């Protein structure tokens, strides 16, 4: 019975390989210890648990074409993928998933993230850094009447109730804003309040000059530097809506562009938003950056110091030299972070003042800049976070469901097929181990739907055995010998088993192709389960029968 020996050897060999591939092993990984990321040796089971089973966040990023047309998306995405991966690595997450999906999307999965907001910011930040000179030619004042007209035609206006509120606060608000120093872009409640009264008469005349009736002339006030304008909160929505109109974009003075500031300005109960008119041609962009580090400056607070490459430095020096005494806006992701006055030409090294931003914000900005700017702006198409509490709970429930399902199936099988049922159950146990090992081999991520698919595949896996057993029973009914019945039973059941598995595997592949995240996990478990069930139902249980036949030669009856 050499044949039998080979069969058994194959089963045992596969079992050993499966056990080996499922055994936990040690890997060196960046992990969080007491809030700090360190490299450490940790013990990991090869089967990754999906986000829904351990908590964390799932992000899908796609190219934001509203900001910039992209010619070769797929290639741009490949480069973006590298940058995102690098950022994630620096952020320090164990077992992150960063992969391309289709040719316009990147999927990021960050298990065990305890600060989703920060992670979201970090990944999403395209770090599209530009240095642009702030316009001082009053370009906006020249086109404001035209803007008013366009806004009126497009029927964009501020609701009257809001205007009333805006007007009463305006005279105080704007004046006090004007008294502030250059760091006006931050949320500066304290300072603004302190500044009220001091120098209040200041530039009220400039504020009055703009009032003429239209959306822009009523609501937009000049800020404390040429090219900067402030808008009360009540009018912000209408103004930003109007600024996004194509007609307004067309009416912009040539070579100028409008960008909002990153933060709002608060004065008492009133909140203002600032926008800037900038030269649209940037002096340099983020790709000229070679290094960026966070630092704390005794005067400026938290800053990010950056270093430029040779070409960037040369260009930066000559351009900043031309614009001494002008304001230069540092624009990150199309929003003005700050716009300091250039006191002299700046060469290779410069710094970005965060003006009151936290050290963590400085660290994140430096990290984003250092890890490289994204070649294309990305936006979040989808994101989700799941608390670890849900994870632990769902794992327990899933495992319990699996246990109960197995128990029911074992009872049904052994109750109905007796001895043959025991063989089938042993084959089923091997099925479980093989499938898990295969999933580990695929680097599959175990998700809750995946687990459900697994439970279900156990139910379906039994089908192959049932088909075979019923055939054997039929053959026995025809009065064939036990040995012949077993052979014929397996042989006749084969075509149905193969046809059904083939169609299910085809569907599973379609699911994998068009599914995302959990559905893919489900498809992988389904297909892996089927392959394993084909092997155990046809090969393993046949081998068990052969072993049994071998041990009890000349047997006349079969308990099936």
């Amino acid at each position, binding site marked *: 019975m050499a044949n039998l020996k080979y069969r058994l050897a194959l089963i045992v060999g596969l079992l050993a390989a499966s056990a080996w591939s499922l055994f936990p092993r040690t890997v060196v990984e960046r992990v969080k210890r007491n809030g700090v990321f360190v490299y450490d040796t940790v013990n990991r089971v090869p089967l990754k648990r999906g986000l829904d089973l351990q908590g964390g966040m799932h992000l899908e990023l796609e190219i934001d074409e509203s900001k910039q047309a992209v010619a070769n998306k797929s290639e741009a995405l490949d480069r973006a993928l590298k940058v995102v991966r690098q950022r994630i690595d620096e952020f320090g997450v164990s077992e992150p998933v960063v992969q391309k999906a289709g040719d316009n999307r990147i999927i990021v999965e960050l298990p065990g993230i305890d600060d989703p907001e920060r992670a979201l910011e970090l990944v999403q*930040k395209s770090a599209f850094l530009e240095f642009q000179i702030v316009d001082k030619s009053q370009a906006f004042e020249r086109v404001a009447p035209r803007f008013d007209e366009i806004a009126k035609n497009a029927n964009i206006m501020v609701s009257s109730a809001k205007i009333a509120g805006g007007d009463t606060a305006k005279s105080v608000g704007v004046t006090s804003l004007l008294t502030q120093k250059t760091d006006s872009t931050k949320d500066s409640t304290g300072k603004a309040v302190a500044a009220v009264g001091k120098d209040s008469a200041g530039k009220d005349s400039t504020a009055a000059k703009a009032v003429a009736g239209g959306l822009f002339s009523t609501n937009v006030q000049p800020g404390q530097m040429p090219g900067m304008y402030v808008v009360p909160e009540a009018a912000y929505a209408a103004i930003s809506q109007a600024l996004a109109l194509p007609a307004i974009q067309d009416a912009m003075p040539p070579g100028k562009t409008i960008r909002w500031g990153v933060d709002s300005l608060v004065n008492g109960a009133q909140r203002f938003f600032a926008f800037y008119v900038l030269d649209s041609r940037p002096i340099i962009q983020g790709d000229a950056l070679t290094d960026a580090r966070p630092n704390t400056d005794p005067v400026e607070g938290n800053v990010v110091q950056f270093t430029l490459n040779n070409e960037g430095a040369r260009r930066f020096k000559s351009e900043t030299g031309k614009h001494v005494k002008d304001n230069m806006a540092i624009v990150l*992701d199309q929003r003005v972070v700050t716009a300091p006055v250039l006191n002299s030409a700046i060469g290779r090294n410069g710094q970005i003042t965060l003006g009151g931003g936290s050290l963590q914000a400085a660290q994140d900005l430096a990290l984003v800049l250092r890890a490289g700017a994204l070649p294309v702006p990305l*936006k*979040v*198409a*989808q*994101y989700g*976070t*799941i*608390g670890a509490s*849900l994870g632990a*709970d*769902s794992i327990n*429930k*899933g495992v319990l*469901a*699996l246990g*109960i*399902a197995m128990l*029911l*199936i074992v009872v*049904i099988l052994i109750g*109905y097929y*007796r001895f043959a049922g025991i063989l089938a159950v042993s084959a089923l146990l091997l099925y479980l181990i093989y499938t898990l090992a295969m999933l580990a081999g695929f680097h599959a991520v175990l998700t*809750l*739907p995946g*687990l*459900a*698919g697994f*439970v*279900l595949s*156990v*139910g*379906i896996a*039994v*089908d192959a055995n*049932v*088909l075979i057993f*019923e055939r054997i*029973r*039929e053959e026995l009914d025809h009065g064939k010998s036990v040995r012949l019945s077993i052979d014929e039973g397996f042989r006749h059941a084969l*075509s*149905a088993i193969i*046809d*059904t598995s*083939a*169609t*299910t595997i*085809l*569907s599973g592949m*379609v*699911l994998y192709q*068009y*599914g*995302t995240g*959990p*559905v893919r996990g489900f*498809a992988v478990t389904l297909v892996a389960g089927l392959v394993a069930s084909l092997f155990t139902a046809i090969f393993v249980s046949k081998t068990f029968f052969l072993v049994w036949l071998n041990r009890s030669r000349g047997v006349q009856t079969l*308990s*099936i």
Partner: protein
Amino acid sequence: MIRIFHNTTYHFLKHCRLAAGLTAAFIAAGLVTYVTTGGPNYSIEFTGGTLMQVQFKQKPDVAVIRSTLDQAGITGAEIQQFGTELDYTIRARDEKQVEAQAAGAEGISKKIVSALTQKYGAGAVSMVRTEAVGPKVGSELRSGAFKAMLLASLFTLIYLAIRFDWRFGLAAVLSTAHDILVTLAFIKLLNIEVSLTVVAAILTLLGYSANDTIIIFDRVRENLRKMRKGESLPEVLDRSINETLPRSIMTHATTLAATLALLLVAGEVIRPFAWVMAFGVFVATFSSIYVAGPILMYIESRYPRGAAEAQSRAIRAGTDAASAPAPSTARADRAKAR
């Protein structure tokens, strides 16, 4: 040896009109519900929006949650109890807000949490999960799911046409289409939320139902090859169904057992999936007997195959290639001429 439904001689196909009426009524009921209550209850993945699951320390009043959110400027949010009486899901579908969130502005989920924290005090509300999906992704997912279903059906059709005969393939695919309709009706009647997981369940059930049909058809193919004298196709179909009945009962029982385990203990997240699968076990059984069979009969009555052709197909199918007598060309021609 315990045997159930052994050597049965039920006349399944006799009742095919009744079955057709029943299933048509069920589908019609589903359709009416779709028309009267609007389209499917799509999950956040399809509609776009923000979904949050929050857990309260103490049982909250839904009306209070709603007014709190309204005050925070999140109007029209759906608030639903989820599992225990402390867990709630809050769904905001405002597309503008979702877009604002994607653009990196103040997140709507943050807003919700801060509004609830303000109302109930710090620590009384905790966020279990959030999901935010742009509306574009939603439409992509929908077309993706649709494409997956079409492709899966197409592959099944092609596979069966090659392995069996186009008649079998068509009957199987049409019965699968029936399953989709019935399942959609079921989903609507139970008001199950259509999420990606539910789509996965539908696809699984299609596979499962196709399985069941194929196993019966496999037996039909085999029985056609050794057709008894004077036996008609309906009789062969009935015989095949009866012969495979013990297997069907066993397999459906084990699958149903696994599904019930999921339904009862696997928790709220997996419940819609389990419901669809549990229903799917019944649909699969029903459709492979009462839908696939009658359709095959109908196709056969419109496009009959000659005896010779049947035999040549049996040969092409392979198993009995050596023993089956080769069909004479004359008979094959006559069959074609008919």
